[in-house]
């Protein structure tokens, strides 16, 4: 498979990139390229102009600041996987990173690129939703923060402007009594999700759920929030029954289609299962409960 010809631009700075986006006709942004390059090779995408942002060193970061975990547009999946900060404080990110594709692809593919791609089967969008994070878009008029809830429109379609570049995604730093987790089912390494669920639970000092965020993968036309389940959880103490009902509500709110990754009914039931599993992990990580499995095997 060989791409059609294109013009290749390699800006060194965000400003340069943005002015290229402004001046060029319908450019395509190339970051990690692990989804885009196959599309170019199959000639499913035939852009005349490619703006390759890999040379913009200022976008290569994963850190905390302004009360947020911040991932620059060049933070690779492997950067998340290898980060001690992530291991310590961001359970959902730590869960998701090693489940993305395979090791070589994680070395090249970027988290922001995956969010920008807006494939409903992508993992990071669900985590961004669960954490009520933001997408930082930089355009001719400077930066704007798009709440995750307002970002995804349709498969592969977002509210990002044509002349904008996503320079960062961010999620709030966790409270001390917060926990998060991501669970995903796939058929094999390298496969996209059959279903996935990311959750974030914030507890008050009495062990009551103050706030809940649940994002779902591969069960709707975009990554989607399970708001009914979130509402059901808030103000309650964790229990198997509470989580079971939340799982049920999330499943009801999901809207999967039957495809090669499984039947709609299966995916809906798995939203239920994965939501319960992720909630248990998140509650445990927040330090509020210890989960006892009476019979595990």
């Amino acid at each position, binding site marked *: *498979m*060989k*791409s*059609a*010809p294109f013009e290749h631009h390699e800006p060194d700075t965000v400003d340069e990139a943005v002015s290229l986006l402004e001046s060029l006709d319908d450019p395509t942004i190339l970051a990690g390229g692990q989804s885009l390059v196959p599309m170019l090779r*199959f*000639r499913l995408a035939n852009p005349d102009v490619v703006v390759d942002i890999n040379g913009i060193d200022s976008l290569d970061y994963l850190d905390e600041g302004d009360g947020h975990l911040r991932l620059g547009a060049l933070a690779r999946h492997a950067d998340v996987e290898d980060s001690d900060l992530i291991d310590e404080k961001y359970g959902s990110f730590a869960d998701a990173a090693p489940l993305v594709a*395979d090791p070589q692809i994680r070395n090249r593919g970027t988290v922001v690129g995956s969010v920008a791609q807006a494939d409903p089967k992508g993992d990071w969008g669900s985590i961004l939703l669960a954490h009520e994070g933001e997408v930082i878009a930089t355009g001719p008029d400077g930066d704007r923060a798009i709440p995750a809830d307002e970002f995804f429109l349709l498969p592969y379609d977002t509210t990002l402007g044509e002349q904008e570049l996503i320079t960062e995604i961010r999620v709030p730093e966790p409270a001390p009594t917060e926990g998060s987790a991501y669970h995903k*089912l796939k*058929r*094999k*390494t*390298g*496969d996209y999700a*059959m279903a996935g669920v990311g959750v974030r639970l914030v507890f008050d000092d*009495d*062990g009551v759920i103050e706030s809940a965020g649940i994002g779902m993968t591969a069960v709707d036309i975009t990554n989607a929030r399970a708001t009914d389940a979130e509402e059901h959880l808030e103000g309650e*103490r*964790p*229990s*198997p*029954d509470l*989580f*079971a009902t939340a*799982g049920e509500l999330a499943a009801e709110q999901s809207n999967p289609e039957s495809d*090669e*990754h*499984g*039947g709609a*009914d*299966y*995916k809906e*039931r*798995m939203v*239920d*299962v994965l939501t*319960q*599993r992720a909630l*248990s992990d998140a*509650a445990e990580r927040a*330090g*509020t*409960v*210890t*989960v*006892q*499995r*009476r*019979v*595990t*095997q």
Partner: protein
Amino acid sequence: MSSEPDTPDAETEYQHDDDGGPDPEKHCGHGRGGMGEEVTRKEDKRFITGRGNYVDDIKKPGMLHCEIVRSPHAHARIEEIDGSRAEAMDGVVAVLTAEDLLEHDLATMPTLMDDTQDVLVNEKVKFQSQEVAAVIATDRYAAKDGAQKVEVDYDVLDPVVDAEEALEEDAPLVRDELEDQEDNHIFDWDTGDKEATETVFDEAAVTVEEDMLYQRLHPAPIETCGAVADWDPGMDKMTVHMTSQAPHAHRTLFSQVSGIPEHKVRIVSPDVGGGFGNKVPIYPGYVVAAAASYVLEEPVKWIEERSENIQTTGFARDYDMTGELAATEDGVIEGVKVDVLANHGAYNAAAQPSKFPAGFFNIFTGSYDIEAAYGSLTAAFTNTAPGGVAYRCSFRVTEAVYLIERMVKVLADELEMDPAEIRRRNFIPSDAFPYESATGWNYDSGDYEKALDKALEMADYDHYREEQQRRIEEDADKLIGIGISSFTEVVGAGPGKQCDIAGIEMFDSADLRVNPTGNAVLRVGVQTQGQGHETTFAQIVAEELGMDVDSITVEHGDTDTEPYGLGTYGSRSTPVAGAAAAVAARKVRDKAKSIAANELEAAEEDIEWERESGEFHVAGAPDRSITITEIAAGAYMNHPGDEEPGLEAVNYYDPPEMTYPFGSYIVIVEIDRETGEVDFEKFVAVDDCGNRINPMIIEGQIHGGLAQGIGTAMLEKVTYDDNGNVTGGDFMNYLLPTANEIPNFDTGHTVTPSPHHPIGAKGVGESPTVGSPPAIVNAVVDAMSHAGVTHVEMPMTPDVVWETLDEVGLAHQPAHNVEFDLGDDAEPADD
């Protein structure tokens, strides 16, 4: 056992223990790298250092590149093809269509089942991605650019992709160009005694029936198909380097298709990156590359993309089967019936001996002594890619083994019998060989109970049965399933009178030349694709001549230098070409005796060859001895006056019978009742391939085949939507297992030599692919059989398994067995 006239009797001295085979615990041979030794592979160095030479590595001066324009539709008439925009592009040299090929009489090619396939579509597209035009350009990218600019007008027709629908009266006609073809029916076939079988079923105490689909698979070697064709107008010679499992057969076919005399066609199969049956047929790409080279008088390279490979080249299986067993109440199987609907795609292009339209499917009585058997099959055309290749198996044996091994489990569950016990009760007894089956196969040797017993012990069977029961009783979240398969394969085609490829009998060949300095070159007609022939065939010669394995080079794959052979597939290399190598070596040994006599100044009849030392000596005088190295020198420098100089021999070996390797596999799975995910807890494989040439290579073959069996059972399927679009046509969607999906395997073996094979060996490379899928499915079914599950279709992805769990009420929710300990801090305050 009989053998062909010029074949010496099976070497009894090699079979050096009471069972007629070497003691597996003492298989270590004589230290020269002969039979039974774990010699590291002679071919490895070039592969581990990046010096392999695969077709795409070949670069020739002036070489052009070919890109094929393919139909996006599954069924459509071509109204017009306009290549002018493509031809005008930089780098594009030519655009070829069926019209151009018609000029050279190259527009069609024969399939291996004597159907006629368009090289480039002449009138009507019959499956998605079928070859419509070819663009020849100065590099790959330019060729692709050109292909994108070829404009084709299609009149799109309704397709039919399902075999059952294809046979309905109002189905779209796939092959309207064939005279007398009024529907999509290709042929009916049957085997066995229908009447006797019906009688047995009528009178049987117990009968069971099960429907099962052996889904469409693709062999998917990691190297796709490709060719570099080079017409030399000065020599009037066509040289094609191509990914071929059968270079000589391909030379004959190429000559027939092109009209170029066979002595002016040279096929070279360089290093082949896996074949598994995919590289047995001829594909349009090869022919297009050759035609383009002929027309343009430049070398032309065609390399298939992965999606092209899966979407257009030989698929495997696609047998929709119904099996029935008749038995007594205590589990003695009296009869077997099977009915198959076979989807052959748009052409009848299965790759198997021409007298066997359903391959060796009639081996479906398996390892069991069954009185009555009857099988029937109907094959249909559909608007899907042609195929039916023997993907790592002898022709259709995989489907047959799946059927019988699944049915035995169904019967065991019906009778509430242990599946190991019911097998034991029905095995062909070890003293009944040679055994003729109800469908006419002549089994050479077997000891099925021994292999099963060994597997049961290795698997700790009783322990897992107890553990399975405990988990059922405790309603545990993970169920245990134990699956068994005690398969028998039939491999090693010929005999030539029964088996042929396009009329050529399925013998094979070896040409052994010992050089004056005592080393040797063995040329064979089979073609390795990773099986290790360069090592194992050298071991056979080392064994038979007392040479060191490192002083033997094995050559293959070049039709200009190798003797004619039928190629490597159907586990036939060791049974046929391995036999030829042994026989050729023994011919050399016979001649060596006369030279030894001359050198040792003794009578020829007094010369003895001793296997242990590998030396020739005078009877009764062991110190008057001579090595093959010294004899080689004598053959060229001091040859006996009554003999021709030189030391070489050729053997064309037509096997008297096929060989019947067997084994028992036991798979223990754990099923997650919440998600339907299946984990392999234990995977035991006991194989018997007769005498073993290189245990390390055999074990490697077993591992690889088992992994493919797991792919089959758990992940792989070529799928189509109703419009005939391939929806599982690349590695994103056709799922090959990775290292994370494959467990470690516990391998074991028994040794029951083939009585008719010169070194007592049987084929082995395909046993694991054939034998493992039913063991895996049996394991998954076994985990749920207490709730009434009798079958789960492959591939058993988590959704498929979960749906079965859910149907029979075995699915669990996470809350099922979970308690939360809220801890002191989280307790609600009392006040």
